[in-house]
């Protein structure tokens, strides 16, 4: 994993300490080097740093922003960051960052982007409760919202299977973490939604 660190020395030291503990194959590269397949960790101090992002966004990098407060959050969201690290809660947020990087190292994407008509949706896969097939569309149900995307259920399952999702019916994929109760024919989710189990998929739930 290639990492570019562009932040104050004190934060660089903290980040390096954690990364060296949790990851074995880690390479710290310089900003001037060839920027490919790298994770760019950048501290945002002023609007000038955001302007610099316009140039950086041409390289297909994964960004992580170190922020002091939420002032530039919406501007930074344009660059699809993997996560934000709040400097006031750095130790706590780094743990979350490590989890994301571990997923990434295993080739699993936790942040999913969907295009739905004129709308762009960016969602953490762990927030998805269940997915429902509806004609040529799928409905993605999360804790906070429901949205309709034109995609095949099988394609979504391919993306989500390694992240703890299973198919329980020809029309339903569920996140195992959200199961509240299950019977031989139904699965009850945390949101009190009751979903049927297909005959063909019963073995997957055992």
């Amino acid at each position, binding site marked *: 994993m290639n990492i570019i660190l562009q932040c104050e020395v004190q934060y660089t030291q903290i980040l390096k300490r954690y990364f060296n503990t949790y990851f074995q194959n880690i390479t710290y590269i310089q900003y001037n080097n060839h920027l490919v397949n790298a994770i760019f960790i950048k501290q945002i101090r002023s609007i000038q740093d955001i302007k610099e992002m316009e140039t950086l966004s041409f390289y297909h990098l994964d960004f992580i922003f170190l922020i002091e407060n939420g002032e530039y*959050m*919406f501007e930074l*969201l344009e660059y699809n960051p993997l996560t934000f690290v709040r400097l006031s809660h750095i130790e706590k947020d780094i743990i979350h960052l490590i989890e994301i990087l571990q997923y990434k190292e295993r080739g699993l994407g936790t942040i999913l982007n969907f295009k*739905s*008509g*004129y*709308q*762009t*949706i*960016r*969602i*953490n896969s762990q*927030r998805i409760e269940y997915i429902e097939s*509806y004609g040529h569309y799928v409905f993605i149900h*999360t*804790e*906070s*919202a*429901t*949205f*309709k995307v034109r995609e095949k259920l099988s394609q979504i399952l391919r993306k989500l299977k390694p992240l703890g999702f299973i198919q329980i019916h020809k029309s339903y994929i569920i996140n195992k973490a959200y199961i509240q109760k299950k019977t031989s024919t139904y699965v009850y989710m945390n949101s009190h939604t009751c979903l049927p189990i297909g005959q063909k998929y019963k073995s997957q739930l055992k």
Partner: protein
Amino acid sequence: MDKKVTIGERMSRKGIVFSWIYLSVFGLLTAVGFFNIFHLYTNLPLINNYIFSFFIYILTMLFLTPIIGSYETLEFTMQSVNYYHAKGFLNQLVEVFRILKNKKAIPNTSMKANQILKVNLSYITQFAGWAQKGYRLKMTFLMHDGSVFTIFPTSINQIEKGDYEQALQLLEQQHIEIVDKYNLRSVLSTNSYQFQEYIESLEKEKIK
């Protein structure tokens, strides 16, 4: 009573019937045009000409009907924020039949109001085919769980009706923070011309 603010217009059955009558003129013109072509350049019997022209009429109407189905609405209630849109030929055609059948519309995105943390108002630049520059409102909804939903409400003509201000007030009543760095809110309660002018002035300021 539950408060509801809708931005954008929704097509009704009555509207569809009126639009169909209006579009039938184009359908008839095409059918008559083809009838004359068949009549002048082929030796088909007259009855076949009528049948062909009728098919041409049906085909034209099928191509024109989706235009009626094009719509985009944003609905704010105390429980949720719902975004409905129909995009693309087939979707718009399906939408017309859905309205005619009087079936309930399913939102493309439905956000639970109590899960919305912040709403950011900003804009994007868009260019028309003849290099004319315009601006579109961009609404970004940040949820409590970190999810982000971005919506570009194109029904900007609703500005004149002051719907945006009502919708934002409804969100504020539910303690949702509105982030408005460009002070767009003030122009959202004027008209679309002023909205464009205001952003143009912001863009000029940036260059200075």
